[in-house]
């Protein structure tokens, strides 16, 4: 059957649509910014947009992996805050401590991700609840341990958040490098490939001989590590660690929205890192435009909410036509069962008729 051809077309298509949407947002943004008497494509503005991308970008890259595995991570804002504090307090203004501080922070984050991953896979706790709980536990620790900002970042580390190559900030370059690495990880390694399989249908992948827990655990670990990178980056910008920096950014829900905006299926099994980067870019451009035209900050949230829903509605409306019927669908693994089934039954009918006619 022609199942393969539309599949290839679609995978290209979803990411392409994300970037078409990004282009559209940029054009609308440029017009709006120009009417406000500013230049959208000035180096300063481009730098602002790219800077805005970097933190959410890190978090969203990790979130993509977790969502691919049909899980969620709501603990990221607290991991971000915790890592900003850990990094800043261990460095304590001394450049010699940069490398140990980064290593310790990333290791702690990986440990948190490991615990979450094991809770999800071994204890069979839904990812939503496991990470909601883990976030609350970290929040409890942060609230108890830190009364306010703490530690200080040495100047050398603050440069990461402050310098750039031309209009491109170093932080964005690091974020894009991380995206490239993760994209390669997804496409080239066995565990990366298994993430799609496990997210698509865990039972089928188990029957196919995949150790289903490993990809999920790795995804959660990488997600926490990425959140920690975001935390370190925020700390390098602020110069100190802050216990509220993650929650203020609302990175949990925003990163999930960016991932879904990037064309990744919230139910897992289908998506791409570059789509996510496109989604993050849409957010960054939107925020930038709304800041430049000095929109009321409360209206910003309204616009954001409407655009998230509208954009995702466009993707899913399109996906109805092109989804391959999938075995083992139930309420959790398929959003459009009737259409798929109808399609499947029609095809079945056609095939039955062929030999007789």
């Amino acid at each position, binding site marked *: 059957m022609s199942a393969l051809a539309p599949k290839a077309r679609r995978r290209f298509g979803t990411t392409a649509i994300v970037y078409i949407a990004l282009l559209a947002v940029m054009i609308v943004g440029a017009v709006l910014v120009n009417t406000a008497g500013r230049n959208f494509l000035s180096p300063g503005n481009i730098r602002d947009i790219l800077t805005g991308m970097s933190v959410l970008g890190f978090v969203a890259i990790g979130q993509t992996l977790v969502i691919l595995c049909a899980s969620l991570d709501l603990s990221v804002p607290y991991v971000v805050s915790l890592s900003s504090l850990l990094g800043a307090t261990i460095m304590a203004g001394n450049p010699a401590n940069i490398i140990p501080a980064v290593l310790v922070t990333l290791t702690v984050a990986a440990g948190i991700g490991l615990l979450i991953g094991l809770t999800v896979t071994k204890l*069979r706790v839904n990812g939503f609840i496991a990470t*909601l709980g883990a976030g609350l536990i970290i929040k409890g620790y942060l609230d*108890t341990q830190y009364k306010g900002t703490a530690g200080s970042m040495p100047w050398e580390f603050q440069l990461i958040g402050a310098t750039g190559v031309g209009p491109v900030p170093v932080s964005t370059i690091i974020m894009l490098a991380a995206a490239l690495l993760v994209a390669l990880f997804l496409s080239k390694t066995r565990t990366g490939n298994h993430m799609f399989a496990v997210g698509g249908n865990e039972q089928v992948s188990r029957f196919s001989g995949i150790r289903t827990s490993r990809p999920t655990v790795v995804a959660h670990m990488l997600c926490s590590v990425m959140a920690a990178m975001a935390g370190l980056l925020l700390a390098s910008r602020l110069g100190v660690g802050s216990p509220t920096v993650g929650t203020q950014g609302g990175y949990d829900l925003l990163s999930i929205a960016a991932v879904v905006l990037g064309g990744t299926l919230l139910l897992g099994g289908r998506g791409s890192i570059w789509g996510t980067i496109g989604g993050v870019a849409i957010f960054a451009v939107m925020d930038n435009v709304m800041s430049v035209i000095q929109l*009321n900050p409360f*209206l*910003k949230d*309204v616009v954001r909410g409407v655009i998230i829903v509208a954009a995702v509605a466009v993707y899913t*409306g399109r996906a109805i036509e092109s989804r391959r019927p999938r075995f083992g669908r*139930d309420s959790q693994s398929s959003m459009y069962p009737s259409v798929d089934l109808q399609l499947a039954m029609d095809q079945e009918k056609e095939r039955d008729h062929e030999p007789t006619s």
Partner: protein
Amino acid sequence: MSRQADAQLSGSQRISRALLTLISPRGAVFLLLIVLLLAITALNPSFAEPGQFIRFIQRVAPIAIVAIGQYFVIVAGEFDLSMGSLVTAQVVIAGNLIGQDDSRSIPVLIGMLVFGALVGLVNGLVTSLLRVPSFIVTLGMMLALLGGVLYWTGGAATGNPADGFREIGRGGIRNVPVLDIIPWAVLVLAAVLAAAIWFTKTPFGRSIIAVGDNETTARFAGIRVWWVKTSTFILSSLSATIAGVLLVGYAGVHPKVGQGYEFIAITAVVLGGVVLGGGRGWVVAAAAGAFALEALFTLLNFAGVASTWRDGIQGVIIIAAVAYSAAVFRGRRKSPSVTSPISGKEPEPFAEPAHSAPQSRPNEGNHSTQKEVQ
């Protein structure tokens, strides 16, 4: 599976099964609640006095009502993240529109209910007809509602509504023997819970669980899935509205009232043994989950635990509760048909709807149809 087993049970087995229910995920929340209430009473004996206890129920009422609304959405297999923002929005609307004019109470109350139903309708239609995941729809609604309300009030929502309106949240029938006061909030909660129990027993209420369990079979059974899902969102938004009416009396008008209620409600529902993803759960247990959560906070207060650790302990408890119910359900699911396909039976194609397995058996031909297409 379970239905066939039930038929074969003898009388004594049935009694032991009833006891087992209490430690099953379905009943565990009641056990947890009893333990927590006993622990609070041990620390602070005055808690068990009827007057104090009714105050406790009054405090839980908004949370329990929100949890009951969230129950319907979750059991239908969706999420409603917009509830907290809707509570805030309704609180601010009440504060701004009623002002100090008692005569406006009724029209504004009706307006709030209509607004709530409208929010639910939009959530539901976008989820069911436009096929946007409810997580995203309600997330967008959450941002838009909160932003819209703050924009409307200029970021500083103040001005409490007339005392007559606030009476619903903080007043009650006074001079009652034993209890001293029966708060209106408790009566509202009782009415909402009774209505919810009645609703789950109607054919429509049962179809909600069917949709959450398996949308495809529900559709083939002739259920209008889009309307069932939409109605659950309307129910959850209406319950958030009622909670808002109670909270405006109890807590006053502030943009932070209602903040985080969506996650508290989801936590309470999950504590009540309702499975995320839908198809399994009991509305009374969901309400009991809200009581258990508030009892937990009260206990931590009395035990002198630093308030900063409240969140941490809440986190541990919800993970433990869900891990427990997952372990029990997994134990139940270990039927030969899943673990050993060699015994001649076909392996279960679905992991989740284990309960519905017997009904779906006759549809075997249907499954093979799908497989061939693959």
